[in-house]
């Protein structure tokens, strides 16, 4: 394993431009660490969309409420996987939970994560589905599913009507707690990067907020696409008022995220501190394609233009659907590029500010493209299982 790393690094030696500190040849955080904030962002975004329905009572979003929650859960379950795979000693990872260093942004991840997964998301989904679960535990044609549902009722097979009222109140309270938790979860991911003063590309107090809004954009885009796809797959009509509202939130998030990113860039350019020269070279050189083309033009400006058009003009349903789908997809790609530009881009240049190293994405290997691909597909597999077990729509009556 390590021999491959050494061989690859020897190749990289010839591709250094300018001067880097010798230890900086190896790019420490690979594509897996790009995936981590990407997946976490999808979680936060999807959950915030769900919360809008619940907390702010946006009734029109009802069709996507459960779907957003399940999406958030599916991605949350997989989110720590790339981190785990990336560790030099995965078997020691529990040290983070047992002896966390309180000054480390990373150490808090385990706790924020567990809190969010256990206390907020699982509980909220469970409370929301409990009525159905109790019913399915009796009526589902498959014995396996009946068994699972029975376990999920926790043995309360004959709930009282009052208990559902209580569930609703507790659920609402949970969402109210969950909203700041989701913001914390992802704002915190931004802080992991934003708090590294050694790296001028990362170090900015805006980082958590930028991460948060781009997370919202990606999460909402994800749910939007999933909703459209599932409607098509199940052969049911898309509820356009719902889709329009989701798209409106999406547009808001994209505009805010993009404005913050530009604000950050303008500020850096205007202050033009000693690191500005190298950052400019970075943007115009190694990151030109992934930042200017993919993140800014395709990932931000195109969606703003397309969804913006639907807001300005009355367009037929069909056109709107196409615009939404294209914008959502572009945004998902663009935000992946944004994570890439932050994580990998921040490691291209030397902390001596005098040169660049390179990153060769391997196909195979623990941190290769293939492994990243598998990890990105996994949440969708989990989501498939969740949809099978906890369909967010009315279950079709069992064929008699």
């Amino acid at each position, binding site marked *: 394993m390590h021999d491959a790393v050494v061989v690859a*690094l020897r190749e990289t030696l010839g591709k250094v431009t300018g001067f*880097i500190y010798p*230890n900086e040849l190896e790019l420490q955080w690979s594509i897996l660490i790009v995936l981590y904030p990407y997946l976490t962002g999808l979680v936060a975004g999807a959950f915030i969309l769900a919360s809008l329905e619940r907390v702010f009572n946006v009734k029109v979003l009802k069709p996507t409420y459960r779907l957003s929650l399940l999406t958030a859960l599916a991605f949350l379950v997989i989110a720590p996987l790339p981190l785990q795979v990336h560790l030099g000693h995965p078997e020691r990872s529990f*040290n983070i939970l047992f002896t966390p260093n309180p000054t*480390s942004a990373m150490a808090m991840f385990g706790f924020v994560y567990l809190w969010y997964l256990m206390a907020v998301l699982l509980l909220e989904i469970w409370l929301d589905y409990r009525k159905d679960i109790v019913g399915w535990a009796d009526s589902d044609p498959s014995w396996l599913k009946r068994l699972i549902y029975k376990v999920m009722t926790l043995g309360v097979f004959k709930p009282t009507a009052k208990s559902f009222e209580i569930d609703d109140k507790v659920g609402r309270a949970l969402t109210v707690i969950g909203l700041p938790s989701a913001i914390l979860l992802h704002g915190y991911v931004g802080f992991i990067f934003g708090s590294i003063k050694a790296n001028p590309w990362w170090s900015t107090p805006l980082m958590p907020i930028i991460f948060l809004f781009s997370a919202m954009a990606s999460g909402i885009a994800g749910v939007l696409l999933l909703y459209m796809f599932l409607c098509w797959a199940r052969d049911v009509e898309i509820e356009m008022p719902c889709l329009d509202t989701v798209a409106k939130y999406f547009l808001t998030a994209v505009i805010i995220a993009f404005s913050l990113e530009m604000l950050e860039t303008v500020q850096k350019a205007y202050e033009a501190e000693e690191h500005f020269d190298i950052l400019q070279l970075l943007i115009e050189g190694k990151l030109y394609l992934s930042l200017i083309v993919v993140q800014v033009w395709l990932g931000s400006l195109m969606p703003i233009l397309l969804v913006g058009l639907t807001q300005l003009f009355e367009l037929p349903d069909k056109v709107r659907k196409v615009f939404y789908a294209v914008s959502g997809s572009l945004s998902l790609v663009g935000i992946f590029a944004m994570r890439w530009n932050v994580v990998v881009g921040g490691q291209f240049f030397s*902390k001596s500010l005098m040169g660049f190293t390179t990153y060769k994405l391997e196909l195979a290997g623990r941190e290769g493209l293939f492994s990243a691909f598998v990890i990105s597909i996994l949440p969708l597999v989990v989501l498939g299982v969740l949809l099978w077990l906890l369909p967010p729509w009315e279950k079709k009556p069992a064929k008699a």
Partner: protein
Amino acid sequence: MQALRRRDFLRITAGAAASLLAGALRAPAAWAEKFYREPPWRRKKPYWGFGVDVDKCIGCARCVDACKTENDVPREPFYFRTWVERYVIRKDGEVQIEAPNGGLDGYPRVEDAATVAKSFFVPKLCNLCENSPCVQVCPVGATFKTEDGVVLIDKKYCIGCRYCIQACPYGTRYFHPVLQVADKCSVCYHRLKRGLVTACVEVCPTGARMVGDLSDPESNVTKFRENNRVQALKANMGTEPKLVYKGLDKEVR
């Protein structure tokens, strides 16, 4: 019930406001003291520090070789606990920095010597930060500062997340390809504890490097700091390195 709640609420609010106010009034006195921070070596003996005299370094890289031998650092040209950079500053302002294989293979001949304004060697190693960013970010406490001021790594406890490597402003850390943990200069802690100097100091032919006890007013590093105008790298980072240099140039990164 309602009234009682309100009374409680008022009392808590008033209490919180009062303590905030008291804190605000107390602040100015504490504020003045902030400008003087007692050096940690006043309180703790010994307290290790390091000095580098750039004017004495001849760029022979004996230190790099000795360090790799003493500490079993992989021989590949991208893993170093210490390395030596050569700066060539031309009369037209062009700056050229090189450290091929950390200096171990020597340096390419400087072309057009007549156009060189100045040139010198700068050895690099762990900066022994008093406020170490690497210690700050380590999630599990596998990298830590000892009571005598040295930043070390617990290789049996490190999970290999590489956050510390990102956090070090000086690029002194690397990821050990065999052990799969972070690694860096330990100022040869195992040697210091046996009363020996670090391997790099031991072999340095010109005395450009020195290690010593900052708490001892007569020690080499204390005298070095007193008798010279010394400077730390990237002082703006607030890391307060206990590695100081004499004869640095503004171009040194």
